[in-house]
């Protein structure tokens, strides 16, 4: 390969090319103005990914700035690879959630696998050892011809990657809705732990310091992946398969160990993984944050394909690669570590004081442009938006003629795809490697993983109810945060902070932009009220196919902490004779409930109101009871309402519940999805203490009955056996997946 051959592959830089690269005419003109000349082909490619929605957050930035991101527990908020939160004793938890939606739709196995790989790198780049993975998945209608294939591929990809790297996948959520038929969501979250004095950042420092490339070799995969992630889908999106990267979890595992080993030395100045937009974004971000220039000579960069051009190398999204800035003279220490782990290691450049990104190869310069002006000129739009109209409350007349026996209604709900057991999925994930998993989600409202070598634990959950967000984005956004906070409280954890993964449609449509703005407003309200700041996040827009948007899905990943993993309480009833208590007001809100959709066949009304003061009061009360050792089982009331919550506690244990208090209860009370509520099971001798504390805290507590037998029953007789519910609940997904792909 020579300079001439490279030039022969380049295309003239014109407005047409800029458009093909995803830039608008105004953006192209701005590039000309900044450089004072026509960019080279390589520069045009670099500018286009830097200014892509995916990298520049140009539609969302204005609103993301309004989120609360600080608090005494926050060590590092948004802007770095992941958020960092203090968990005491010099320990921190580092976490983030990120989407890999478009690639996963095009190539589900590799799309999901590289999504896991990417988020793992974001976390261990900061010096953390990853201790848990979670994921939030949304698929299309089960009836859609592609859904089965996508579920199989995504689950297998998440497992294939996470199992191999040896990080337990401890849970998440999976929903189905026709709005995701053409655009599934794959949101992956990683949680790691690090010592507070061993956290690594991306800002480069030290003119003359070496820029070092480590990890896998660079190939032609994923070129312009960030651009793809910033465009709507059409029927010909299959043609974009070559922009999907291929994952190698074995190399990732070696990279984790090698990077952590290097970080234990004093050699590292800064580190950044090569994620979206590959070497371009890592080089530009590191130098940009440090206020420096960077000069790269690509001839010695490890490549796995021949005759690559500087443009291809700078835009490749090959996986499992990292960029380090090393202290002077420490190159050999680092090289020895990467040799041990049999990973490529190459010094590819130096930091300069020019402020420019300079790319040299084949004896020529292919890019020489100022970093700060190009970065700072990344567009920021205040896109027009419309608020979502407020829905009318659901009238009582919807219950006219409703006479389904309660057992039949429960059976129907437990067989519906959203409530059906996801065992078929989570059994494909190694949830136990590391030996620190106390609960995976499903066993408790949040997963609980012990900090390696210690007694304390981290609790983790992901939450979002997209049907609520569609009906009322503000309330839905607040509800997602409140439910995450509640799920952490329900296991006894102190909620610390969240990561938000904002999945929406095309922001150029005011209706969609209004959903985004509303969700941000709701999230911000809840975060402020619950002292639950946003420390990291990711925005995925243009989730549309042929003009059809997904449900607005602001997925919330949340982390809390427990002083001892063994304090945590799960949802399963522990023994017969425990007293079942409802914490919070009785249910009444049926709008947007699962009952309304699955039993009455209507998707209407507003989502349940979110009273954040009540949420906080009730959650703190429940957490206090758990810490006082008064609680045997605990579960928050969510999808399906009170009776579904109790039935889930019974299914998790095989122990039934006798509930005289629910004799002749109205469907609103049984299935209403009112917020800030929990069901607890406590030993009979603890009831008085709980009631006394409740009175002091002003929290409503109702005795519903006791754990008993192997069925749910009320004073007027048996409702349904656990076996009957379990059969339909466990049966749906395996039966569905056993059909032909």
């Amino acid at each position: 390969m020579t300079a001439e051959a490279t030039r022969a592959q380049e295309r003239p830089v014109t407005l047409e090319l800029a458009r093909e690269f995803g830039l608008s005419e105004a953006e192209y003109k701005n590039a000309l103005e900044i450089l004072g000349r026509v960019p080279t082909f390589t520069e045009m490619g670099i500018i286009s990914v830097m200014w892509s929605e995916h990298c520049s957050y140009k539609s969302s930035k204005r609103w993301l700035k309004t989120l609360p991101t600080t608090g005494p527990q926050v060590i590092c908020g948004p802007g770095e690879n992941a958020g960092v939160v203090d968990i005491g004793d010099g320990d921190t938890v580092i976490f983030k959630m990120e989407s890999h939606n478009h690639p996963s739709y095009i190539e589900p196995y590799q799309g999901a696998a590289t999504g896991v790989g990417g988020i793992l790198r974001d976390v261990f780049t900061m010096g953390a050892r990853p201790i848990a993975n979670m994921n939030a998945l949304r698929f299309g209608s089960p009836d859609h011809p592609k859904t089965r294939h996508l579920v199989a591929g995504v689950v297998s990809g998440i497992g294939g990657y996470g199992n191999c790297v040896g990080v337990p996948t401890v849970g998440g959520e999976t929903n189905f809705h026709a709005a995701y038929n053409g655009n599934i969501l794959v949101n992956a979250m990683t949680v790691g732990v690090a010592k507070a004095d061993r956290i690594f950042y991306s800002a480069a420092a030290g003119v003359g310091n070496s820029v070092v490339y480590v990890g896998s070799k660079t190939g032609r995969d994923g070129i312009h992946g960030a651009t793809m992630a910033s465009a709507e889908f059409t029927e010909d999106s299959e043609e974009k398969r070559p922009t999907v990267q291929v994952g190698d979890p074995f190399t990732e595992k070696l990279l984790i160990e090698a990077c952590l080993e290097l970080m234990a030395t004093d050699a590292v100045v800064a580190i950044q993984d090569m994620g979206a937009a590959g070497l371009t974004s890592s080089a530009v971000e590191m130098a940009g944050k440090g206020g420096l220039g960077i000069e790269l000579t690509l001839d010695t960069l490890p490549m796995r394909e021949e005759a690559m051009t500087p443009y291809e190398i700078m835009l490749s999204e090959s996986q499992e690669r990292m960029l380090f800035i090393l202290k002077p003279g420490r190159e050999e220490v680092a090289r020895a570590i990467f040799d041990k782990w049999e990973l490529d290691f190459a010094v590819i450049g130096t930091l300069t004081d020019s402020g420019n990104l300079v790319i040299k190869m084949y004896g020529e310069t292919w890019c020489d442009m100022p970093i700060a002006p190009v970065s700072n000129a990344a567009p920021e739009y205040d896109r027009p938006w419309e608020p979502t109209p407020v829905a009318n409350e659901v009238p009582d007349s919807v219950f006219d003629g409703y006479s389904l026996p309660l057992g039949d209604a429960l059976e129907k709900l437990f067989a519906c795809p959203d409530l059906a057991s996801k065992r078929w999925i989570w059994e494909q994930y190694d949830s136990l490697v590391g030996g620190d998993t106390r609960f995976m989600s499903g066993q408790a409202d949040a997963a609980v993983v012990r900090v390696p070598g210690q007694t304390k634990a981290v609790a983790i959950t992901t939450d979002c109810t997209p049907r609520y967000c569609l009906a009322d984005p503000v309330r839905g956004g607040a509800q997602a945060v409140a439910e995450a906070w509640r799920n952490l409280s329900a296991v006894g954890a102190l909620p610390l902070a969240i990561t938000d993964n904002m999945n929406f449609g095309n922001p150029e449509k005011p209706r969609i932009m209004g959903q985004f703005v509303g969700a941000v407003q709701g999230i911000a309200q809840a975060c402020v009220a619950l002292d639950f700041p946003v420390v990291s996040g990711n925005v995925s827009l243009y989730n549309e196919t042929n003009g059809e948007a997904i449900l607005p899905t602001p997925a919330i990943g949340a982390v809390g902490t427990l002083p001892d993993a063994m304090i945590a309480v799960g949802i399963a009833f522990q023994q017969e004779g425990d007293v079942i208590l409802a914490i919070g007001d009785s249910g009444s809100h049926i709008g947007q409930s699962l009952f309304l959709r699955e039993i009455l066949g209507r998707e209407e009304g507003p989502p349940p109101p979110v009273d954040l003061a009540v949420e906080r009061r009730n959650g703190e009360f429940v957490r206090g009871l758990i810490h006082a050792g008064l609680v045997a089982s605990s579960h928050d009331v969510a999808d399906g309402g009170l009776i579904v919550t109790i039935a889930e506690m019974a299914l998790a244990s095989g122990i039934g519940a006798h509930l005289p208090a629910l004799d002749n209860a109205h469907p609103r009370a049984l299935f209403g999805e009112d917020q800030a509520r929990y069901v607890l099971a406590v030993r009979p001798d603890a009831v008085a203490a709980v009631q006394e504390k409740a009175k002091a805290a002003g929290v409503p507590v109702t005795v519903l009955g006791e754990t008993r037998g192997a069925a749910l029953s009320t004073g007027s007789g048996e409702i349904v056996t656990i076996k009957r519910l379990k059969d339909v609940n466990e049966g749906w997904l395996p039966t569905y997946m056993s059909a032909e792909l």
Partner: protein
Amino acid sequence: MKAAIVVFPGSNRERDAVAALEAASGTKPYLVWHRDTELPKVDLIVVPGGFSYGDYLRSGAMAAHSPIMREVKARADQGVRVLGVCNGFQIITEAGLLPGALMRNGALKFVCRVQHLRVENTDSPFTAKYAKGQIVRYPVAHGDGNYWTDAETVKRLDGEGQVAFRYVADETRADPRGNPNGSASDIAGIFNAKRTVLGLMPHPEDAVEGLHGNTDGKPMFDGLVEALS
């Protein structure tokens, strides 16, 4: 008891094994890197779970030919106890320490769950602390756990007391399923002829403390410490 854990690129359950061994013996085991050619003097060698070399060729096939495995085989021949768990079972089987082979799970999917096992033979330091026929629960977490050998060899293994554990269903439990991978004769783990080498797919090291939900794996490590100290 002194123990060594052999670590390959891609091993990922070595920390679990360290914790279980240290809890049982009070001594930190040695971690031996795959490129090493010598083992310290030890009473027990553990080949842990994971995805050695990514398992890209065939599970355990690459690791079986790494330099350290020649040394492991030589020590096994001298009677040093060897425990291969999951990927470790695959590796020591590929290395010829045990008969048979581990194939892709029958359902072609990775499976992670708590599994009921029956202890088939207690005449070994690995199983001495169990009762014959005892039902125990260890987690499984593997994609290639489908143990295969011909019917005649199964018969011989049974006859000579070389079957250590079998997968069983337990109708009394919430999750009554049996064999998770389609293995021949429900075999979960086997000994060599002298019962000094044990290979098994389930993970006793992930069932040793309250946090794990059950401690059925603890007697294996306690038994080893008692026999080898």
